[in-house]
Each structure stands twice: as C-alpha cells, then as structure tokens.
C-alpha cells in the first residue's frame, strides 16, 4: 500500500495515450461536428474563410423539411425494424436447431457465421448482381432469371429499383434487408448458442417430464432466460442499420427517388461530394443522437451491474 500514489501515477501514464486520443478523436471531434452543424458552412468558399456565423438550429430545421431526409428517416426506421426482427428470428431458430447437435452441426454453424467475416463491400457487390432486376418480363437478370428458369415468374419484381411504397416503407429496401439479415443473423445465432450452452440440462429435462411442449419450453423457459442476451443482440444490431453505409453504397446507392437512401449516405454525399459541410454535420449529429439514445442507457446499466 506504500506505493499507492506512485502506482496510480504509473497507471494513469499508461492509460494516458489512449485517454488523450479518445478525448480528441471522439469527444473533441463530436464537439467540432456539433459546432459546424450550428453555423453556415454550406459551400467550399465559406469553409475556406473559416468564418463562424452561428445560424442556430437552421440547419436542423432545413434538414427535417428536406424530403430526402424525411425519406431517409422512414427508410432507417423500417430497415432497422425488419433487419432486427429478421436477424433475431432467424438467429434464434438456427441456434435452437443447432443446440440439439444434429449431425454436421459444426459445419452448419460455420456456414451461417462466415458472412460476418466478409466485408460489406464484397457482399454489396454480389447482392447487387443477384438482385439486379433486368427489364421485365422479357429480359430478366439475376434472381429474376433464376425464378424464370424455375418456373416461378410470379416472384419476379423490380427489387431495389422499385419505387413503390406501403405506409412509407419503400419496398426497394427488401433486397437490402435480405442482404443485411444474411450477413448478421449468424451473430444472434452465436450469441444464443453461447447462452443456451449455459442453461443446465436438468431444467429442460424437468419441464419435458412435466409434459411441456417444445414451444412451451422455448417461450416459458428459454426465451425469458435468454432475455439479456437477446437485448444485447438488439443493442448491437440496431446501430448496424445506421451504419449500413458500406453495404448500401455498394449494393444500391441511394436508388431512384432515394428509395434505398439512408442518413449515412446522405451525410457522405453532402459533406464530401457537394461541400455542404453544415448539412452533413447536422445529419451526423442526428445519427449520433439516435445511437446515443439506445447505447447510453445500456452502457450505464451495464457498468452499474458490474459494480454490484
């Protein structure tokens, strides 16, 4: 205990490069983005003068009146919803089957997980080629061509080039959601499998002896016990849809009428393609707030629980 101060100093000095780096690169830069979102830097010449004219919330007000951004918000909402539901459902289903250790379960598990190791750039490129609709009905491409060959012309449609929507849900997002679920459902599966292995066999055996059906075992025992894990999965998966930039950028881009646009793509184009720095920064701050609303309570809760 004599060395306490010395060791504390040593501890701090080991941590200090990381603390300084994160302070600048995370908190400092966020502050700077926030600042830019409150001034009028929507052209390159304004950026060069470096003059700071505060315009208050003007950039945000303009943003929320911008039809492209409104479309982006609806797209994010529906993408997030269906992507999470799909990945959780598929992940849980696969983990329940694999947990019974059928023959070849290791191989199946590896097949369902490998997309997590591949770049969105690669998967975006492939899925774009698969979902390219071609011109219907005479000259179908990709999956439409496959449907034609299989005699399932009924399933042919314009995929990510469709401009139809239902209750603000642009159905062109469906192929993007499929690609994202393909990439991430293995993640939920891995988390659930890890959790299932920690549940004592006796509990399930006892329920089975009492005559509980499979569905009852799942809904009354497994699902409640795995609730924290499912919640973690949702927390990890939700921001993915906000971050799906690389996938959408490479698969569909913004699409006709921005049907597959998301705030991340709008932010990138505004900031780095059309020099609307303040618009881009206000989009970035909205994105950050959406993620923060989700993550901060979770982080605080997690750190608190650890202390108990």
């Amino acid at each position, binding site marked *: 205990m004599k*060395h306490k101060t010395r*060791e*504390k100093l040593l*501890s*701090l000095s*080991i*941590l200090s490069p*990381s*603390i300084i*780096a*994160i302070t600048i*690169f*995370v908190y*400092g*830069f*966020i502050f*700077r*983005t926030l600042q*830019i979102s409150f001034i009028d830097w929507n052209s390159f010449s304004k950026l060069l003068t470096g003059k700071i004219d505060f315009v208050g919330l003007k950039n945000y007000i303009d943003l929320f009146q911008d039809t492209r951004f409104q479309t982006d918000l609806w797209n994010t909402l529906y993408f997030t919803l269906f992507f999470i539901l799909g990945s959780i459902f*598929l992940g849980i*289903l*696969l983990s329940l*089957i694999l947990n*019974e250790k*059928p023959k070849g379960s290791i191989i*199946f598990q590896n*097949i369902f997980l*490998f997309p997590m*190791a*591949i*770049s969105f*750039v*690669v998967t975006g*490129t*492939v899925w*774009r*080629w*698969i979902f390219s609709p071609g011109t219907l009905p005479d000259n179908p491409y990709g999956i439409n061509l496959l449907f034609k*060959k299989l005699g399932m012309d009924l399933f042919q449609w314009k995929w990510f080039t469709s401009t139809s929507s239902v209750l603000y849900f642009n159905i062109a997002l469906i192929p993007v959601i499929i690609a994202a679920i*393909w990439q991430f459902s293995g993640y939920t599966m*891995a988390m659930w499998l890890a959790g299932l292995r920690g549940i004592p066999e006796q509990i399930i055996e006892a329920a089975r002896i009492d005559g509980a059906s499979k569905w009852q075992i799942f809904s009354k025992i497994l699902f409640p016990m795995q609730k924290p894990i499912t919640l*973690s999965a949702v927390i*990890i998966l939700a*921001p993915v849809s*906000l*971050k799906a*930039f*690389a996938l959408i950028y*490479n698969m569909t881009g913004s699409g006709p009428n921005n049907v597959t646009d998301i*705030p*991340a793509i709008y932010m990138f184009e505004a900031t780095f393609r059309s020099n609307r720095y303040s618009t881009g920064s206000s989009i*970035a701050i909205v994105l*950050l707030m959406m*993620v923060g609303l989700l*993550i*901060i309570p979770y*982080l605080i809760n*997690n750190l608190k629980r*650890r*202390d108990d």
Partner: protein
Amino acid sequence: MKIKQENTKKNYLILIIMTLFFLLPMYVLLSTSFKSFDNVSVTNMWNLPQNLSTAGFITALKKLAPNILNSLYLVIPATIISAILGSLNGYILSKWKFKSSELIFGLLLFGMFIPYQSILLPLVKFLQNIGLYGSIPGLILVHVVYGIPITTLIFRNYYSEIPTALIEAARVDGANLIGVYRHIFLPISIPAFVVVIIWQFTNIWNEFLFAVTVTSRPAQQPITVALTNLAGSQVTEWNVQMSGAIITALPTLLIYIIFGRYFIKGLLAGSVKG
C-alpha cells in the same frame, strides 16, 4: 420416437434451405469468377462455367495488386499497435483500478458505439492539418485510435478472470506494476492477443467508410475502395468484378476458416458482457 424423427427431418429441411440461402452468393461469386470473358453474360449467370478460366482472376489481380499491398501495410501495423494498447489498458483497468477508472473505461468504451459519421469531417480536417491525409499512415492512426475501445474491452474482460491473489503474491516478492505485467500477465495473454489480432485484422481489412474518405488517390487506397471502383466502373466484365470480390474476401475468409473459434470470441466480446 416417431415424433422425434419427424422433428429431425423438419430441422434438417430448415438447415438445408438456410444453407442454400447462405451459399447462394458464394455460388454466384465462384461460378462467375471462373468463367472466361466470352462465357460471362447476364443470361448464363446461374450456369456453371463451361470451362474453368482464370482470366478474370488474372485481370482482377493485376488491377488490385497495389491495393492489396496497401491493405497489408495498413492492417498489419494497425493491428499490432492496437493490440498492444488494448493489452496495457485492459491490464490497468482490470487489475489496478483507481477511483475514476470505471468512469474512464466507460468513456473509452463509448467510442466503440458512435456512428463514425459524427467525427468524419473534423477527422479529415485534422489529418489534413497534420499532413497525414490521403496516406496509409493516416489510416493506421485512425484505426489504432478507434480500435482502442474494443481491444481494451476484450483484454479487460480476459484479465478480470485472472485471480488478484496472483498479483498480491508477486507484489510480496517485490514486483511492481510493470513487473507483474511482464512476468505474469503478458505470458498468459496469448489467447486474448489472438482474439484481438483476428478481430482487428478482419475489421480493418473489411473497413470502407474511413478508407473511402481518408484516401483520395487510387494509388493509396486499400482494397475495399479499389473493389468499389472496379465494380462501379460500367464494365460488364462480371468475371473480373466477382474475381475481385473473392480476392478481397479471401484473407478474412481464410482467417475465419483457420481461427473460427477465436473469431467468434471476438464477436461475442462486442456484447459488453461483464
């Protein structure tokens, strides 16, 4: 017994359908990339190649070779540096806790969850100011810094499970903070290093947003950006595009196949379990 067999059948049916779904893009990738230039067209996309041709691969490899090197120059140093930083941070934050160390950990961890759009513009300006914009060293710096939260988390969780009594024993023997790290923690850290190195290697290799904003000249771009440019050009040489995609995916796929177990550990670490 009959019910059980029915169930097994149903399970296998689901597994096989899902396997087809998961392997569909791989089929398209492989069958297209091995087609020759005159055999590749939208109408025979689902056919197997008539004869195996490596022409697509050779063309893609020629175009992507400088970018593969860029990616290696980027990934290797960035991975090593962030692993070392994570190990040191994790050691302090798990075994030498002080009054505000939990708060510091929480503040570091937050960096893992932010959408990087929220720091992108100031980051680019900062890199321009220090003369690292558009260069691989600039990208290395970016990945090292934004890798701190996850690498710290993985090491911290790993070290938490090592009994504190071990440290006390070593301290009685006169070892200080650094001595304990060198003689006790570092030698048993190999599994955590493997997890972190695989995780960082995969993530940095696959990363796109930083790569496309921080590098502007094709000669400096990592492979993910080069693949986008290759695929975005209006050429219908699908065999070249798909070959390029396979080349881009290959290193991380190989790592997954060889070190799958460690890869999954890294994956699960992201869920911030205490």
